[in-house]
């Protein structure tokens, strides 16, 4: 192989050597379109089973070629993070770059090896295509450019959260989770593809995509502003939210969901409390309506409603039976998960807007409902679930068989009680974990070792508590047993509680789906413990309403019946929070907003 000299004088007959080609065949391909290569970028195909309609493809498309189309009949479930929308592609814009495929969080979108499409001028509508698995002409073509490990543009791994080691954290009630550093937060925020699934699934529809983007942009004020659009309990929700958003997160389809809760926490922690108060006060009307609203219960629902109403210019007074605000978030959640100063900060934001809270004022005792009715234009009861349910198993009336709510409140208030050297917790929810881990800490402080057993009805595949809670509880020395139903408490001759007997669970629900656990009588176990804690649920103490009011109100299986807006059957009374929606902070917040809107519109009339 050599070059050709510039001065070369080849024979004039050289070209004639190529006459040989007269006798050679052609290299022409047949007229049929060849099959394209294995990763060809042809027309789109979309697996509708996998696709969740998150519209990430639409966002990355550089040519604005993707339109989201709603398709009735497809499953739609905001909680699971599924929308009944599918992308439609405009082939008058598409450039087949495949970025949509590379970024698709579910991996449903792919490019096929089909590449021939022609049409006449009046058939141009065929350029607007709703890709399905069958290709644009309904003929199957193999996939071409498809999701691969190399090609994935989505970062599937979340930023690790720094936590205290189990040995360290068990020693105190100090907060376990350290929170993100600036760097981590920005990286974690950058993982978000802004699909808005979290917004849809959130009970109070927090503007998570917006505040995550603001965090990514480094504009934390804006992030707080976005958070306060829907949630005045942001410090709390940044720590202990049940985060349905993360379940719905489209990144979570194949990887770790974006740490939305931690990002919220990061934003709230990074902005000074004074600045938060300023931001929260934005949008408050500068006049008073002259209307007065009483709120009973300074929990998330009540305070949220108070926050909304006071911003609308109403005068709001909150009656709280205990000495501090926060309700179950304060008295039900241990400090290692939710430090009280953060809770105080949230409450301080609300009070700074002009909400008055009367502490240690129990309605029914210190003030009656009738008084409230006369004094105020509207009354909201947001009592929460402050009474623990009992299993009513034999021996459960023993004094050392305690309810978790009660015990947690005592721990919070610093009330002294005998810390048992061993304890059994009945229940598999987060409350059970809370009490178990709180007890573990107390035991550690008192005795230097942990002897707590948790028995849960559910098996680990259907566990109610967060996996992290379970994991951390285990790390802290809590023994957790699944599929065990309580049979009875064992009390010895001296009347001392010795432990709990449990049976193996066969099934929890009957065939009609009602709660009716059946046990395997042969599988009996004994769990020693000098205290048994029931953490199987809570209920509301509605005694404060008084008999007359209780009769006026409509009830539904022991719960107050309210309409969609939280309005009870009595015109001046609304109800909200856990007592209506069940135990969850963010639901309570959502409920508070809803009721506040209802009260506001009623008062405006």
């Amino acid at each position: 192989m050599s070059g050709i000299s510039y001065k070369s004088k080849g024979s004039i007959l050289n070209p004639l050597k190529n006459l040989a080609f007269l006798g050679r065949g052609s290299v022409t391909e047949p007229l049929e379109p060849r099959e394209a290569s294995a990763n060809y970028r042809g027309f789109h195909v979309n697996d509708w089973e996998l696709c969740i309609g998150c519209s990430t493809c639409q966002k990355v498309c550089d040519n604005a070629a993707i339109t989201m189309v709603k398709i009735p009949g497809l499953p739609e479930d905001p909680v699971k993070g599924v929308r009944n929308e599918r992308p439609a592609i405009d082939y008058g814009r598409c450039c087949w770059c495949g970025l949509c495929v590379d970024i698709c969080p579910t991996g449903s979108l792919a490019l096929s090896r089909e590449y021939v499409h022609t049409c006449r001028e009046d058939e141009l509508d065929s350029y607007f295509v709703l890709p399905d698995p069958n290709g644009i002409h309904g003929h199957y073509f193999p996939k071409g450019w498809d999701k691969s490990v190399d090609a994935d543009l989505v970062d599937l791994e979340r930023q690790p959260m720094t936590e205290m080691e189990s040995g360290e954290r068990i020693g105190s009630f100090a907060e376990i989770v350290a929170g993100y550093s600036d760097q981590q937060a920005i990286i974690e925020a950058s993982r978000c593809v802004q699909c808005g699934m979290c917004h849809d699934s959130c009970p109070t529809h927090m503007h998570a995509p917006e505040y995550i983007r603001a965090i990514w942009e480094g504009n934390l004020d804006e992030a707080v502003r976005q958070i306060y659009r829907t949630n005045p309990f942001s410090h709390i929700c940044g720590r202990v939210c049940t985060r349905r958003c993360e379940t719905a997160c489209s990144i979570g389809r194949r990887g770790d969901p974006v740490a939305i809760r931690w990002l919220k926490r990061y934003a709230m922690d990074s902005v000074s409390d004074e600045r938060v108060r300023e931001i929260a006060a934005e949008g408050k009307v500068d006049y008073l309506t002259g209307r007065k609203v009483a709120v009973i219960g300074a929990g998330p629902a009540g305070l949220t409603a108070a926050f909304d109403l006071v911003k609308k210019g109403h005068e709001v007074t909150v009656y709280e039976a205990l000495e501090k605000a926060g309700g179950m978030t304060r008295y039900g959640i241990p400090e290692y998960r939710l430090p009280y100063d953060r809770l105080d900060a949230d409450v301080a934001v609300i009070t700074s807007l002009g909400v008055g809270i009367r502490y240690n004022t129990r309605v029914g005792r210190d003030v009656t409902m009738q008084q409230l009715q006369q004094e105020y234009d509207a009354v909201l009861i947001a009592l929460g679930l402050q009474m623990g349910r009992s299993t009513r198993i034999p021996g459960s009336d023993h004094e050392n068989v305690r309810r978790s709510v009660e015990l947690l409140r005592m721990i919070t208030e610093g009330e002294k009680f005998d810390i048992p050297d061993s304890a059994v917790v009945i229940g598999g929810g987060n409350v059970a974990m809370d009490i178990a881990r709180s007890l573990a800490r107390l035991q550690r402080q008192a005795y230097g070792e942990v002897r707590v057993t948790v028995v849960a009805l559910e098996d680990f595949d259907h566990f109610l508590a967060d996996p992290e809670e379970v994991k951390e509880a285990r790390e802290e020395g809590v023994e957790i047993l699944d599929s065990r139903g309580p049979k009875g408490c064992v009390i010895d001759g001296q009347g001392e509680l010795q432990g709990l007997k449990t049976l193996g669970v066969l099934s929890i629900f009957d065939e009609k789906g009602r709660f009716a656990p059946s046990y395997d009588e042969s599988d009996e176990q004994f769990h020693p413990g000098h205290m048994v804690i029931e953490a199987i649920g809570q209920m509301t103490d509605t005694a404060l309403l008084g008999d007359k009011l209780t009769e006026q109100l409509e009830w539904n299986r022991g719960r107050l019946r309210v309409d969609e807006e939280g309005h009870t059957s009595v015109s001046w009374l609304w109800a909200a929070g856990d007592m209506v929606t069940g135990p969850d902070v963010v639901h309570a917040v959502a409920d508070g907003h809803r009721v506040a809107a209802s009260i506001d519109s009623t008062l405006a009339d």
Partner: protein
Amino acid sequence: MSWQELLLELTLMPLLAFVIGLAMVLMMRRIAAQIQRRVGPPLLQPIYDIVKLYSKQTQISHGFIHELGIMMAVGGYIAAEALLPVPGMDGLADKGGLITLIYFLMVPTLGMALGVGQCANPNGSIGISRALTAMLAYDIPFVIVVFGVAFHYQTTNLAEIAAIQQAHGVSGWGMMEMPLLALAALFALQGMMGKQPFEVYIAPAEIATGPMVEMSGKFMGGLFVMQSFQYYTAGVLYTILFLGGGENWLTFLPKIFAVVAIPMTIAMLFPRFRTEDLVRLMWKWPVMAGLLGLAFVMN
């Protein structure tokens, strides 16, 4: 020969020429395809092209002279066909002869010049000036060749020339008796057919096909028809002068196709010369070969 017979021949000869010419066009395109390693057009492609061109609805004319020019271009060849004897038909060969033929062969180029001049497209004008120069260039060796052949056979009657050669068998072919003139004629043939390296007046990349630039529809169709006549004429003329004409169609057809295949093949292997290179080349080697051949013939 009765006038009816003559009339029949005069009708048949151009018709045959046209059909054979179309086949030659196809052959050219197939040769090109073969060398370029591809399949090439289907069998009836030249007909499709011509029918299509005549069926065009828009027929842009640039005036009477323009149309006349095209008619001259086609007519010149049609007239020439009558002078080219084919097996079984002599047409006017014995009456017209070689000299008339040369004249007729110039008519198309002149006709084109006339027609293209009306288009006022500078590319066309440049093209036609190049075409005329090229004609001047290849006509010199061509005239020498014709003169030499006529001198050699002592006649300008093509039918006679063919007959003389056929009488002596292959060794009596002009090619054998006057190899230098045959060679010179090959060059002239290449130029006459306007094939690379003498394609200077079409030159798409330079002057956008020159004379044809403003032609469309039936005018373009006319040029396509002219092209098939041109190939036929060139092939038959060379065959008669140097390859013994046609004893019968079976030998005649291979000969004329072989003759035109040569320039067509060469054309695929060479680029085009510039005009002055073309003239220089034409007036150098073919003319020298022709003159030398002439000298041999004269001796």
